[in-house]
């Protein structure tokens, strides 16, 4: 009895330090981990597994190896969707970023009214996709919109159904999405530009640098981390784009504005080809992870990007 008591106490001590005390800390994060596991991690792992099956969502699934991926590489619609995504991303990396940089640089150079401009530019970014599409479906309507207005004044290049033509549907969608995004970039870049050391501009000015040269040699290098980061989030956002395409054209006409996400959606929820849809999801995840991993590896190595 007298011998066992301290041993039990020791056991209790071990139990307490290795179980009770950690539990008292972990209990704060366990609910968060469970919800994340249920909503994101478990379904993501299932998604990867489904990609190697021919499952239709209800009956038995068969393991079919890489067949879904083989099918994808021969699927002309998927190829079209991939090219459309690349086009989407390419335009987005140029136009909204250029407008964002222009707006931010000009805003950084004024003293009065900065707050009001920033406010106006940022409002469209707060809008849901259904709002942006409501606004621009009207403004790009051949009968009521800007095109009709211009046509009344003799300028007839925009008085047609932008979203109804195979040659213009995708660009119309990119435009609407870009209108929604550029103001956010202005605000993002402006915040970075106001951090730039004023003396650098002073020195450049004394050296006789023009405004363009100052922008090129002082502003751009100074905000590079923010710029690179914005390109990364644009790459991800445009690769995964769904809402604007689904609402404006549904990927049509005749797949002209199809993107990978809308194609995945059709395969999963209209054709019930769950395995095939899952393989598109895997390709999307891989494609997004390329710049993401480069970014993190370079950051880890201490690159100032």
């Amino acid at each position, binding site marked *: 009895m007298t011998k066992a008591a301290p041993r039990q106490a020791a056991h209790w001590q071990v139990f307490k330090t290795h179980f009770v005390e950690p539990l008292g800390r972990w209990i704060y994060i366990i609910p968060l981990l469970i919800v994340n596991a249920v909503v994101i991690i478990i379904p993501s792992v299932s998604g990867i597994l489904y990609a190697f099956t021919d499952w239709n969502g209800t009956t038995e699934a068969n393991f079919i190896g890489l067949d879904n991926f083989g099918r994808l590489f021969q699927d002309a619609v998927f190829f079209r969707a991939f090219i459309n995504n690349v086009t989407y991303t390419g335009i987005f990396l140029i136009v909204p970023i250029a407008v964002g940089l222009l*707006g931010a640089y000009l805003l950084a150079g004024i003293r009065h009214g900065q707050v009001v401009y920033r406010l106006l530019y940022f409002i469209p*970014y707060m809008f849901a996709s*259904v709002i942006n599409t409501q606004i*621009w479906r009207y403004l790009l309507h051949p009968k009521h919109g800007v095109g009709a207005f211009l046509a009344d004044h003799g300028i007839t290049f925009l008085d047609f159904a932008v979203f109804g033509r195979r040659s213009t549907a995708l660009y119309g969608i990119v435009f609407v999405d870009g209108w929604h995004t550029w103001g956010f970039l202005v605000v*993002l870049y402006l915040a970075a530009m106001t951090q730039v050391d004023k003396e650098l501009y002073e020195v450049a000015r004394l050296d006789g640098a023009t405004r363009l040269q100052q922008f090129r040699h002082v502003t751009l290098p100074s905000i590079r981390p923010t710029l690179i980061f914005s390109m990364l989030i644009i790459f991800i956002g445009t690769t995964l784009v769904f809402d604007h395409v689904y609402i404006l054209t549904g990927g049509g006409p005749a797949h002209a504005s199809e993107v990978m996400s809308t194609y995945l959606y059709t395969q999963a929820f209209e054709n019930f080809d769950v395995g095939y*849809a899952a393989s598109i*999801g895997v390709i999307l995840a891989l494609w997004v992870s390329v710049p993401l991993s480069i970014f993190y590896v370079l950051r880890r190595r201490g690159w100032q990007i």
Partner: protein
Amino acid sequence: MLKSGREHSTIPNHVILMTLAFIAFMPIAILFMNAFKTTAEIGRNPLGMPSEWHYENFTEAWEVGRYGTILRNSVVITGGTIVGTLILAGSGAYALARLKLRGGDLLTFYFLVGTSVPAQLFIVPLFIMWRNFGLINTQLGLIIIYCGLSSPFATYLLRSYMVSLPEEFMEAARVDGATNWHIFRHIIMPLSWPGFVTAALVVGLSSWNEFLFAVTFLTDPSLKPISTGLFAFQSRYSRDWGLTNAGAVIMILPIIILFLILQRRFVEGLTQGGLKA
């Protein structure tokens, strides 16, 4: 003198900035103006000010679009998501920031990159899982999904807030024998409320606007939130611009008002990711 003489004029700046403001603002103004026009007037005067302000579109949208119901649904879903996310992320962030967890750094890293797992990878299996759980066409089901989607970001945001709080308060409390819960409830939470407000705004805005999961997981018209409710409305009354514009105005008015009041916090929260870089 020399310096001011070399300063550039800001007039060209204002010309371009006003053009940009026009591009951002005019489409919104036209959306609002057309919400107050009759269909006949939209035909005659598609882009200008309404000659007479009509409110019928709003009352009609309220009745035929069942806006009372979908607004209530949106408030329930958004409110539930904000509360759920702040509880999950707030306590999780506290554990990551202040309680020494083994593997805590790894978890923090997960919450940083966890937001970049594309929904396209998991939406289909999640749908099947939710079907088996009987959570399709329930608002609770969508709220749980939104909590899962927004909690990594909120956790990261709140963690960085809590890490920056001064150590002394907590040390003093610990010396006095305070428990983890006491420290969380009476020291961390009151001190990090600005972080909670910012997180609530970002999470609230994204669930108010969310479309993909809402259109997939809630198909029953009486359960739909405003984003997919408006989408259904647009498809049904696509030619009635006054009516659908009124529906859109009802959806964005609360956002614009809230934004005008809490502008700084919205901008801070939504650009957080960018500024950290």
